[in-house]
Each structure stands twice: as structure tokens, then as C-alpha cells.
């Protein structure tokens, strides 16, 4: 196990390197460079030049990359061109919000989707299955923006049950203290993913229900509910676990639309604004973090799969 982990960590380092190189290269493909975006149309030629010099943008690309790496090795992600903060601080300030939001909505989504998927598989091709499918798909194909919008109008503006804004505190404690304000954003985040998890689960449960071991469990006298919960679910988790592994980077990437709608500045917004203004240090910092999360996510998914399905553990010839 330790050896395997070490091997994966080595791969991870390579991935992160490659990703930063690719992003670095792509960034510099953007026409015009960042100076214009940062300094605005009013900027004079001198200012642009001074800016490019100060940020080292006038140096050859590889040199710039090595500077970036050098700083990275000393734990420095650099400083935003525009926000007057260090990228590390910016991420540290945004991340708790994003994590709270996405972790909670993924959990809520799973809590809904898992029973839903199983239930639909059991009632396969019956009216209930059809209706639930349509509902899940309705939620899926409605853009997050619209879902959030409807929730806001109904629950916050018309009925006034929940606040219109997500918690404005910057610390985890503060965010949870205002948990009522979290409900709408979390629900918004959860709706679209319900369909994803539930439909994959439905599909694998349908397959597994026809397996012989289910017959054995029935012969033991296990109730259908127990069979689903204890036997079939575990056997059906492959795709859901793979999806969850994919969600880790999404988690770190933030949920732009929700952040925008509920005035909840998080990673998504940070990245989006940086992309709009070519704030390279932020872009690189966030991408770096997401790539670490991706590799960790895929590692966790692989480990989880091996834990769930012992047959995948075997070493191949």
C-alpha cells in the first residue's frame, strides 16, 4: 500500500508539473497579454511597459516559468496583479466558503440521489420510475442559475423564509453560525447533481438486482430493503465513486453561478475574475490547487474502489 501511494504521489507531481506548464503556455497565448486588462484602456505605454517589467512578463517564457517554479518551491504562489493580496491568502480566504458550499451540496445531493436511484431501479420501468426520472432530469437540465433564481424568488423574496445572501462571514465558524443562509445556496448546488448520481446508481442497481448473489440473500430471508442497502448498494457504487472522485476538483474549483447569485465570493469567482482580467498569478495558483485536488480525487476514488470491490485489488500478471 505504502509503495502504491508513493508511486501515485510521484505521478501526481508529474501531473501537477504538466498542468502548470500547459496552463502557463496557454496563458501566454492570450493575445495582448495581461497588462491591458489590468491597467485598463487608459493605461499609457509607459505604464504597460513598467508593469510588464515589474511582473517579469518581458522575459522569455521558460525563464518566467522557472521563476514561478522557484517561488512555488518556497511555498509562494505570488501576488495578484490587481487584488493587492497574495494568491495564497486569497485562496485561503475563499476556500472555506467554497468547501462548505460544495461539500454540503454534494452531501445533500447524495442523500437524495442514493435512495432515489435505488428506488427507481426497483420500480424500473413503472410509472413511478418514469415520473422520478423526468423530475431528476428536469432538475438536471435546468441551469443552476434558474434553479437558484426560483428558490430565491420563492423562499427569500416572496416568503422571506431564508435570507437572500449566503453567509457573509469569512471564517468557517462564522459561516456555520449563519447556517440558515446556507440552505438556499446548498439546495441550489444539490439539485443539478441529484440526477447524475441517481441515474448512474439506478443503472448499476438494475444490473446487480439480477445477480445470483441477490437470490442468495433472498434465500437467507433478507428483506428487500436490506438486500438493497447492504448487498446491492455496495456492489453498485463503482460509477458513483468514480464520479465522486471527479467532484473533488470541482469542489475546489468552486461553483461560480451560485457564488454570483448568492453574493458568496469563493474559488469559482476568484478564478472567473482572474480569467477575465488575465490575473496570471491567481489563475496559476488556482489551477495548481485544482490539479492537486484532481490527483488526490482520482487517487481517493481508486482507493475507495479497491476497498469496495476486492477483486480490483489484485496485482496483474
Amino acid at each position, binding site marked *: 500500500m505504502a509503495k502504491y501511494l508513493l508511486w501515485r504521489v510521484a505521478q501526481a507531481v508529474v501531473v501537477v508539473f504538466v498542468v502548470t506548464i500547459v496552463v502557463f503556455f496557454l496563458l501566454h497565448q492570450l493575445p495582448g497579454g495581461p497588462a491591458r486588462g489590468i491597467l485598463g484602456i487608459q493605461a499609457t505605454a509607459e505604464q504597460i511597459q513598467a508593469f510588464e517589467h515589474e511582473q517579469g512578463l518581458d522575459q522569455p517564457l521558460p525563464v518566467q516559468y522557472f521563476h514561478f517554479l522557484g517561488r512555488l518551491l518556497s511555498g509562494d504562489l505570488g501576488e495578484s496583479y490587481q487584488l493587492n493580496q497574495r494568491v495564497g491568502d486569497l485562496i485561503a480566504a475563499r476556500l472555506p466558503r467554497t468547501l462548505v458550499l460544495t461539500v454540503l451540496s454534494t452531501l445533500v445531493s447524495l442523500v437524495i440521489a442514493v435512495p432515489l436511484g435505488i428506488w427507481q431501479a426497483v420500480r424500473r420501468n413503472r410509472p413511478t420510475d418514469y415520473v422520478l426520472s423526468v423530475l431528476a432530469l428536469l432538475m438536471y437540465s435546468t441551469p443552476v442559475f434558474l434553479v437558484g433564481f426560483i428558490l430565491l424568488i420563492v423562499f427569500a423574496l416572496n416568503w422571506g423564509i431564508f435570507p437572500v445572501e449566503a453567509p457573509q462571514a469569512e471564517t468557517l465558524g462564522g459561516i456555520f453560525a449563519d447556517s440558515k443562509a446556507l440552505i438556499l445556496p446548498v439546495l441550489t448546488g444539490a439539485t443539478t447533481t441529484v440526477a447524475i448520481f441517481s441515474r448512474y446508481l439506478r443503472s448499476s442497481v438494475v444490473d446487480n438486482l439480477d445477480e445470483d448473489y441477490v437470490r442468495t440473500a*433472498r434465500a437467507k430471508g433478507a428483506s*428487500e430493503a436490506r438486500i438493497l442497502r447492504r448487498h446491492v448498494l455496495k456492489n453498485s457504487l463503482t460509477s458513483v465513486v468514480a464520479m465522486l472522485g471527479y467532484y473533488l476538483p470541482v469542489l475546489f474549483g468552486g461553483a461560480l453561478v451560485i457564488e454570483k447569485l448568492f453574493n458568496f465570493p469563493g474559488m469559482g469567482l476568484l478564478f472567473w475574475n482572474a480569467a477575465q482580467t488575465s490575473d496570471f498569478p491567481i489563475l496559476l495558483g488556482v489551477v495548481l490547487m485544482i490539479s492537486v485536488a484532481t490527483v488526490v480525487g482520482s487517487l481517493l476514488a481508486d482507493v475507495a474502489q479497491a476497498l469496495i*470491490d476486492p*477483486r480490483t485489488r489484485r496485482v496483474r500478471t
Partner: protein
Amino acid sequence: MDVVLEFDAVSVGFGQARATDKVSFAVRKGEVVAVVGESGSGKSVTAMSALGLLPRNAWSEGGIRLADNEILDLDNRRMRALRGNEIAMIFQEPMTALSPVHTIGWQLDEAVKLHQNLSKEKRTARVKELLTLVGLDRPEARMKQYPHELSGGMRQRVMIAMAISCDPKVIIADEPTTALDVTVQAEILDLLRELRDRLGTAIVLITHSMGVVADLADRVVVMYEGRLVEQGDVDDVLLRPSHEYTRRLLKAVPRLGSGTRQAKDTEPVLRVRDLVVSFGGHRAVDEVTFQIGKGEVLGLVGESGSGKTTVGRCAVGLQKPTAGRIELFGNDIAKMSARVLKPVRARIGMIFQDPASSLDPRMTVAECVAEPLVLHKAHNRTDRVSELLDAVELGNALRDRYPHELSGGQRQRVSIARALALNPDLLIADEPTSALDVSVQASILELFLDLQERFEFSCLFISHDLAVVDMLANRVAVMHKGRVVEQGSRADVFGAPQEDYTQKLLSAAPVPDPAEQRERRVSRG
């Protein structure tokens, strides 16, 4: 005596097709009824209908009474209370019947938990006790293992342990000992007998082994083409069969000591030297050495879990040995790259111990059999497939079925047909006839001998049926606890066994004569 389970004109069908037609028989308390008959005659589906566990696409009619309950009328909840507790079933193919992602300890524990209100420790103790009862070594370690880490026979014993866990009133055992060597089989039969004697458990025993019937059954029911053709006392049926099919069946029973083949001295096709395989420190195969010459059949017999399947898998490179050297057609397979290995493998046929899992569930019978032909771009595939299916006595009607729509024996024959499709130079046959009734087995063996004589292929024949090995093998190797304890020509090993274990094995093989078998049993222990 009181009837605990009664089948009253039970028919089971799939769509328009009828698998069984008005089968009626009854089982009384403390009685062992053996159901024998043709492979595919509907034994398994009849048995499953008693628990209400038919496949989804099946229908059934008639009456099934379990004690005072009309099974077909029961609702789910009441049915559940009966299953496992009052009536338990040992399924035919233990690999697929166990959940692959749960440990066997968990699965057994659940069986206990569902019907008995015991504390966790007590349950664990019970599980251990059950595993010991069915003869599994190191129960503690076994509890933590997953089904795929067990040998075929061990899985089967787990199924048995599961069935007896709640001391049910009725046990339906569908081929419970096919994967067990005769010594373990004898123990299991003793266990069942003891259960019957102690608790008055009624047992429906579906089996192909007339020896087992003779050993355990009180009454025998014979099925043929979906109908019940004969039933009666075990002595009557086995010694004085009235139906023509029963007679044919009994005539086909192979007998130990009828073998004629001699050892050959040809250049080796497969050489295994000092093979060691360990799984997590446990040596499953321990310094095994043997070779098989061209045109030679090596019978590999031995204890369940002694490593026979593992040896077979190593021989073809499916399992990486921990140590040792394996030469196929003169080449060391450890040194062969995948590219070199591929054509070599094409000269090998393999019949897996567990046919259900070795057939792709999404391929029809014809597609399964045709697969090797497709891979090697053979011509006239359709004809060849028909020919092969005919040879293993599977009618054309089954061509388009999927594996799950077949009986256990039918699946096994598909697997045989597939292995023979390319006329291999080396055949690894892992319990190839365990699920076949003796009459079909006889014709398959005949086919085998015929082909073997014609194409001179070599074969590693793993089997528990000593009579079959006696009939086919040129040489025999006996495995016990991972070691080959004895090997030599068939005549030597079976005629004058040197080792204790071999002697025990030979004496434990049941014979299809109830009286004789009773005597043998008494003399044994």
C-alpha cells in the same frame, strides 16, 4: 410421517416454453429425497420454486406446501420469515451466488443475524463454528476473505454453512458436493445426515452422483425432460429401476477400477518445476512439480482447496507464481512477453471450474462458442458451432440463449464446447463434468476420448470424480495441502496407492449401491 414439503403438480416455464411439467412429490420430516435426472430437466427450477426464487422471467403453477403454508400464495414478508429459517437452499454455482464485495464472514453473519437474535460475539462464534463444521481450516482467517479468494469447494462449503446456519426444517441442496473431493464430500454428507438425525431436517438433494444418492438418500425422484418419470425407495430405484431413462442413467455411472489407459513417454508439453504460489503468506501451492507429455492426460485429484485450480491457472499464465518455473511447449512463460504468449495461449483450451462466471453474460451461447473461432478467423463458423453444440448434446434451440437462461450443466457444456473449438494442443479442464448427469457425462467423456485419440492433445484433468479420472488419465497426481503427495501412472496410483491420503481418498469414494455404500461408510469410520 408428516409431510413438510410437498410439490403438487408444479410446472415452471419461461415464456411459452415449459421447463417442467406437473412435477409432484413430497418430502417428510427427517427424510432425504434425492432428485436425479438429466441435465436441464428442471431440477434446479423446481427446487427454486419452493422458495419463490425463480428467475424474473419464469412463471410457475401448481401447489407447493411448506408445512402448512401454500408457498405460491404467501406475501413477501411471510415468505421472508420462512426463507433461511424454515427452508434453506444451497445453490448450484457458489461463485456467482456469493456477493463478491462482502467477506464470507459478513455473509454468514448476516444469515445468522436475520433469524436469530444473538449478540455480535455470539454470532461470530457461531460463524466460526459453522465454518469448522463444513471443514474449512483457519476459520478466523477465512472469515475475512472474499469469495474470489476461496477455492471452488470452499465456496461451496460456505454456501452449505449458510444454509444450515439456522437449523432449517427443510434444506434444498442443489448439487452441494460437486466441487468437493470425496473425503470432504463424505464429511459433508455426514454433516447433513447428522442434521437430519438430530433435528429431523428434511433434505431435498439434487445430485448427479449416484454414489451420493446411495449414501444419503431415503427416496429418489428421477426427472427427465421436465417430467418426473420415476420415484421410489432408494434401493428400489437404484437397484431395480423401472423407467427406461433411469436404467440408462445407472448404466452410465462410471466405476472406479475400470480404467485402462497406460502412462506414455512422450516429449513434455507442459512442465511445472517447484511451483510455489502464496497468497498473503499462506502457501496455497507448495513446490509442485509435474509434467504432461504430448497426448497424455494427467489427472489431478486431491483435497478441496489443495491448490489444483491455482496450479492450472499458473500453467497458462493467469496466475503469477511466487516461485518456480513453468514451461509451455518448451518455453518458459515467465520470460514470454504478452505478444509471444498470445499465440502460445491459442494452443491451449481451458474449461473453468465455474462455468457461470467464465461465460460473458451478454453473449449468447452461439456467440460464446464461436468466440475462439472468431479470434482465429476460422471459416464456416456457424457450421462449426452447430457441430460443437451437437457434440456436447446441446440442441440448436439453445443457440440464442444467454448463459443465465441455461441450467448449470448446460452452461458447463457450453464451456466445454468453447474449449474444444480450436482443437487445442493442451487442455486444462478444471472439473469439466461436475455439473453433468452421468449419462451426458458419459457421452462427453466418449467425445473427449475420441478427440484425444484423434488429435493427441495433452490434458491436465482436474477432477474430484475418481472414477472419471480413472477412465481418462494416463497418469495421476494427488494433491494435499498444496503439495503433490503422490504421482505416477494411473494404474499405480489407483491400484497401489502409497500415501495415506490417497488411500483415504480412494476409500471415501462412494459407490452407487446403497447397501455397499452403507458398508463402506461403516468400515471407514
